[in-house]
């Protein structure tokens, strides 16, 4: 089976070259995106077919000469290949329409298939070299895509932060693999699995994997590149980066920590839990402060990565205490959320891309009322918003519910650290879910509802069929995964079986298609039934109204307590919507405060309000590092301007010091 994905990768690489050639032609976009779509669908099919099967490996005479390039398709890889295939198929299809608006297609077309190839290659790589090769290739290709709109202000900075962070993540993983491979230089995953590292090494490797894979996934505080890079890239690429690439990073973490490291340790779970909880809450808080639609979505990716890591941390904690069933539940929850997030985040980025195409705006405060002008986009985006807010009956709720069920199993754990950490994480998870809902009320409400705030928003037109179809397909997936979660859970069974030695009970056998994580008496959920219930109740309500109530309907100006203001500027904006939350949470986290300047009574000057928000992580971590590097480079820079005599002095000093050292040593 492994040969097929590799074949797809070769095809994608070829397509990248073709893309470079045909980029400037009229049909270039169709060729590249059509080809990518076909290959992605093939990948998806291959992955779905092979997820239940065993693993198949192949060694090619490439890469490091003495071990070759190894590739493997096991259940874990197959599952993530599903995510990659699905995400890239969607993005490619969407791009068939969206890509037509690209001003400089030659900056996108060659790199797009290469990016897809990199994503796929990471998942199937089975030795450290191939893995990192693919990992960095993925970063490089996506960097090129981030830089595709290079003349827009801020994008250069975005690309810079992104590539440096990507390199940082690659180097951290490199150190991690160096640790796992030992001095022998056997970098194949098989050898690493066989070599049981000592606890100290395993601990360090876990931390390095968390740093390396985490910074690519967007774990706080290593998330800084996401809100910069995602908005800069074209929207179908944003969808891929957010929906798929961060998942591939999660894959890297799972591969290293669950597969290569061997037996987990409980405090490893504590670390991952802590990081996950903080990431989830901070991610969503950042998102709430945002008024750029794509940045908001990027911060939500951070939040969802946090949720995934909570699940992974739980799986580690349970796994370390030999509770495989609970670990399988937690891991299933995490992987389910991986799938879900890739679907709804792609959908949301498609939607934001559609808005961008229609209006040229990403700033929500310049939008509004798009539900009238772009009904299809609005509907699909709404589905995405509900899904990401973890509301039933859509898919986001299911995975968060499963995570909660895993949290509920924590009294079985013996360690006090975990007993205290897990409920706290539960609170953070709940908080992030509630805040996410708040944030998407804001996102949808400000962008699509109300009245148009600008001319461009008022003149927006619905986007092309490819884009809307792509959104509808993903919206349908959100619903399907929400009402038939058992199918996804059963699909994940071989994966968790391979990684934790257990899997959740088979769900499709449960009556009424409910899902039952442990046993019926404990907890169960049935998305389908909830949907049917709600539909029936709503229908009953509608019927009753039609039967008994007045049908009359009058259109009139909005009442607004009697003094409506015709100017759309008086509507709530993203900033004003978030004001209560900013005041409650932001005052602590972001040192947020509003300055109101009131003119004295009688004066005709306008009052003004100014909001101040600091980014604590940037200020505390990135800014000092940047300043230190800058200071250091400044401090050393005068060494460029010395006289020859002084340079000779260096040589002289080096000589004397070395001789002295030698004399003393002897």
């Amino acid at each position, binding site marked *: 089976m492994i040969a097929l994905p590799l074949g797809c990768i070769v095809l994608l690489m070829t397509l990248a070259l073709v893309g470079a050639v045909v980029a400037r032609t009229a049909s270039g976009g169709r060729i590249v995106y059509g080809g990518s779509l076909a290959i992605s669908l093939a990948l998806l099919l291959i992955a779905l077919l092979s997820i239940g099967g065993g693993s198949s490996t192949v060694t090619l005479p490439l890469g490091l000469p003495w071990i070759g390039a190894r590739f493997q398709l096991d259940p874990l890889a197959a599952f993530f290949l599903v995510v990659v295939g699905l995400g890239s198929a969607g993005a490619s299809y969407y791009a068939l329409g969206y890509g037509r608006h690209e001003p400089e297609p030659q900056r996108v077309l060659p790199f797009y298939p290469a990016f897809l190839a990199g994503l796929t290659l990471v998942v199937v790589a089975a030795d450290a070299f191939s893995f990192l090769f693919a990992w960095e290739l993925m970063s490089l290709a996506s960097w090129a895509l981030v830089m595709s709109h290079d003349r827009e202000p801020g994008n250069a900075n975005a690309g810079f932060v992104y590539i440096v962070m990507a390199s940082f993540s690659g180097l951290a993983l490199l150190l991690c693999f160096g640790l796992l491979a030992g001095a022998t230089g056997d970098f194949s995953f098989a050898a690493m699995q066989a070599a049981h590292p000592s606890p100290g090494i395993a601990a360090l490797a876990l931390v390095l994997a968390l740093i390396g894979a985490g910074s690519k996934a967007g774990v706080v505080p290593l998330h800084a590149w996401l809100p910069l890079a995602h908005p800069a890239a074209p929207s179908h690429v944003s969808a891929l980066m957010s929906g798929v690439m961060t998942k591939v990073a999660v894959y890297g973490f799972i591969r290293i920590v669950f597969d290569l490291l061997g037996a987990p340790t409980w405090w490893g779970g504590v670390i991952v839990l802590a990081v996950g909880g903080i990431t989830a809450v901070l991610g969503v808080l950042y998102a709430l402060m945002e008024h750029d639609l794509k940045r908001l979505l990027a911060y939500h990716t951070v939040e969802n990565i946090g949720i995934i890591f909570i699940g992974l941390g739980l799986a580690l904690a349970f796994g370390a205490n030999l509770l495989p069933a609970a670990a399988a539940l937690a891991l299933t929850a995490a992987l389910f959320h991986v799938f879900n997030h890739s679907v709804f985040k792609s959908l949301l980025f498609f939607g934001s891309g559609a808005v961008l195409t229609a209006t040229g705006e990403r700033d929500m405060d310049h939008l509004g009322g798009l539900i009238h002008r772009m009904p299809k986009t609005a509907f699909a985006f709404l589905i995405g918003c509900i899904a990401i807010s973890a509301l039933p009956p859509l898919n986001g709720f299911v995975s968060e519910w499963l995570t909660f069920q895993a949290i509920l199993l924590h009294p079985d754990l013996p360690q006090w650290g975990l007993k205290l950490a897990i409920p706290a994480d539960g609170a953070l998870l709940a908080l992030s879910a509630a805040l996410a809902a708040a944030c998407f009320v804001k996102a949808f409400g400000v962008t699509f509802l109300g009245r148009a705030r600008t001319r461009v928003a008022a003149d927006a037109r619905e986007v092309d069929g490819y884009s809307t179809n792509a959104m509808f397909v993903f919206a349908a997936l959100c619903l399907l995964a929400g009402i038939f979660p058992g199918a996804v859970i059963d699909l994940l069974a071989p994966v968790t079986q391979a990684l934790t030695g257990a899997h959740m009970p088979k769900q499709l056998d449960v009556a009424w298609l409910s899902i039952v994580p442990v046993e019926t008496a404990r907890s169960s959920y049935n998305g389908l039934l909830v949907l049917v219930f709600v539909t029936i109740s709503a229908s009953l309500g509608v019927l009753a109204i039609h039967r008994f109530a007045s049908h009359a309907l009058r259109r009139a100006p909005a009442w607004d307590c009697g003094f409506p203001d015709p100017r759309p500027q008086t509507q709530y904006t993203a900033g004003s919507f978030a004001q209560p939350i900013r005041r409650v949470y932001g005052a602590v986290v972001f040192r947020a405060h509003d300055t109101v300047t009131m003119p004295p009574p009688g004066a005709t000057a306008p009052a003004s309000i100014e909001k101040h928000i600091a980014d604590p992580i940037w200020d505390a971590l990135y800014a000092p590092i940047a300043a230190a590097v800058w200071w250091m480079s400044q401090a050393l820079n005068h060494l460029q301007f010395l*006289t020859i*005599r002084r340079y000779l002095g260096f040589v002289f000093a080096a000589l004397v010091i070395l001789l*002295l050292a*030698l*004399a003393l040593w002897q």
Partner: protein
Amino acid sequence: MISGFAFDVSHMLAGLLVLVSFAMLYQDRLYAVINVLALHAFVLAISVAWQAHIQHAPHLYITALIALGFKAIAIPMALRRMVFRLGIHREIETVVSIGLTMLAGIAMVALSLMVMLPVTAHVDPVAREDISLALSVVLIGLLMMVTRRNAVSQVAGFLSLENGVNLAATGAQGMPLVVEISVAFSILIAFIVVGIFLFRIRERFDTVDLEALDRFRGERR
């Protein structure tokens, strides 16, 4: 085996070279430096000739001749003319005071003895003395280059450094290619001296003072 007398003489000559190096370090006038430089090369020439004699290595006489003709006579003359023609200040600007420089020079000698004497225990005595004193000369030459601002005196420092290396080369008994090496070195020196002329550093930079030369650095425009 080399006799005690031969050893004494070569030892004395090598010591003399170190002494002359110190003398050069002591000078603060350009002409004086050039004179001492000539003396330095002269002592080297004698030393090399002595080595040729005791090692029965006639090719070393060529090296000695090069040292005498080229370094002791031609180069100092060229330098003197240059100082005259270019109107270079006769004073040498030193970076640290002469006294401190001398102290540093003594430290260099101590260092070279400290490094060399233990490690050359198995080498024959002539080479041993020569090598450790040659190292002193090299280090003092480098010290001279580092503590003088003036290009000509830096060239003088480099020449004395190079004389030290030559001393070591000839002291190493039976070393092949010594002549070739000394020729190659002479070319290098000629390049330096001619370079100052050819690049017309005076014309372009007003002075051969390297501090001034260094002002023209690409990054400070």
